[in-house]
């Protein structure tokens, strides 16, 4: 089972990414597609966090004396994830608002049926 313990985080993160991609590629409903995008985002965030992880590491906060620097996990991915989450939220919010409007115009969220703009 060493394989799993080595890679379970990667598998989890990329599992989410691929599930998200699958949803985006296959699902017809706009809300589902947006959820898919959100899942991809989450997966990527997890992946970034995983990259920075150090075995048995602690959070990079010197909140009390005696914490050793070399036991701390990499702070950079955490900072990146912070940013990435916000960007994800921003896209999500915009997408939701567009979905609302789309529904008002077309009366459906089925993306296969919304194809007036083509060719």
């Amino acid at each position, binding site marked *: 089972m060493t394989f799993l313990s080595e890679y379970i985080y990667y598998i989890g993160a990329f599992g989410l990414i691929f599930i998200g*991609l699958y949803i*985006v*590629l*296959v699902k*017809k409903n706009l809300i589902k*597609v947006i959820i898919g995008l959100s899942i991809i985002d989450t997966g990527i965030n997890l992946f970034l966090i995983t990259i920075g992880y150090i075995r048995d590491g602690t959070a990079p906060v010197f909140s009390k004396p005696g914490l050793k620097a070399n036991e701390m996990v990499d702070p950079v991915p955490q900072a990146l994830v912070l940013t990435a989450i916000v960007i994800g939220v921003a896209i999500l919010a915009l997408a939701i608002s567009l979905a609302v409007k789309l529904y008002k115009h077309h009366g459906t969220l089925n*993306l*296969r049926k*919304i*194809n*007036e*703009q*083509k*060719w």
Partner: protein
Amino acid sequence: MNLIILLAIAFGGALITYFLGKISQKIRDIFAVFISLALAVIAACFYNVSSREIYYTGFLDFPFVLRVNTFSWFFAVTIAVIGLFSIIFSLNYIRKRGNTDFYYSMMLLVIASMIGIVLSGDLVSFYIFWEIMSWSTFLLISYNRGPAISAGMKYIIMSVTGSVVMLVGIVSLYLHYDTLVYTELSGLLNNASSGYILFIIILFFIAFGVKNAIWPLHVWLPPAHSEAPSPFSSVLSGILIKIGTYGIILLIFVIIQINVFLNLGEGILSVRYIISIIGVITILIPTFIALLQDDAKRLLAWSTIAQAGYIILGIAYGTSESVAGGMFHFFNHAIFKSLLFMVVGAVEYRTNGVRDLNSLGGLIKKMPVTFIGGLIGICGLIGVPLTNGFVSKWLIYKTLILNNSPFLAFAALLGTWGTILYSYKLIHNMFLGQLPEKYEKIKKAPFSMQLPIVILSLAIIFFGIIPGLPLHVINSIESGFGMEPLTINIWGIASDTGTINMLNIFTAVLVIGIMVWLIFKVSKKSTVIGQYDNYAAGTTVPKDKYNYSVNFYDPLCRMISPYLKDFIDDFYMSLARSIKNTGNGIRRIYTGDVGHYVIYIILFLALLIFIQINWELW
């Protein structure tokens, strides 16, 4: 006088004309005539001047060179003079139409860019002027609206195709020889492999061939010439397509050099011979297609292609006589073809746009000056002695016969025979025969139209009797190219292989003419009979019911017409259609379904990764 000033006047005049027109139409007209007159005068002043100046170096390290020598002078003067006449002709012709500022401005721009082409001394500035000419011509051809739109479209597409191909040639020359200035470039190709020269020739020939309407590239010309405003048709036919000829001369004699050109290939497969054959085809097919036309301007348009064939034949054949013939024919054709377009234009102007030969007729009494102009014009076109066309055609025939190319000569002669037929059809159906009733009240052409017609007609006779003047210039052009000069006197050519002396012919014709006139005068047997004073089975013919001109040459036409379908045109049209269909097919990939679009993205990604994993291509 500086060359750059000439160009500045030309282009500046074109621009200013547009804005002057916003102030006053009259001032603009005067200004336009003045500018074109100034161009003609200044261009003429460069006679025997040989100079070269670099006027601009900022363009991507290409120096721009202007140069003048006899060769470019000859073309520049022709352009400026014909341009002047058609501007004068336009004064009345275009007055009632809309958007006249645009018309004059574009007309001057076309003339300016053509002068720019012949004065440019390197290929980049040549190309730039060439393109300016192309698009301004396009705008002018489309000016008449209606069918002119598709004519303009055809023109510009072919023209752009040609010029992009030429661009490849130019850039390739630059990369090989690091210069595009003619004087530096000429002779450099002596050492090039014949394959490369052939490559260059083909590239440039496509571009020049489109402009010059050489046979398989001619399809734009008939609609464009017939749909353009008539004064512009005369520029188009008289000089604009000859810019293609200029290019071909430039290519063969300046860039490649004649001796290299003549030695390309062997016997029947030599480049010279192939181009001559193309020239002959360009004479034959369009000549007989012209015969079938019922639209006066379209007939002249096809005739233009055919005459361009003579010029190409003469130039590509490559002996000093044939080249002289070709260049002289260029000059003559500029005169008589613009004259003929003006004649048709005058008729069209007075009849409110009627060009259909079947519904015209009998205008000789109403528009006598125009008729005389037309008559002299077709004489020149046919090559009747004492007109300029005779000398140039004679030169071409002679050299073909003397150099053992009887088939080419025969074909050229056949072309002349066809020319006689369609020219007669043109003049007869417009001016002779019965006058339809609706044209009873027609007036003669206004002065601004008669003036160019008269001057050009006189020029035809003048250069027909004294061909030595232009031939002298052509001779010095040829010696500039390093060719053997002809022996020329003012009346014609005196060489050991054949002499032509127009003075003798002139005297002979004059004597015969006087004799004929005397006989008619003395005998006085003939009486003049009115047009409707004739009998048909005892009753007079009702007016307008009987028209000689319909179905002219009907049996001949029926015989030849199946062979003369314009396959080339069909081919191009189907090409265009298939491109359109391809586009219509391709844009189906944008299905409107965003699910497909994301699949494209992922597919692209997956494909690249797949290739790399499997074949490690990158």
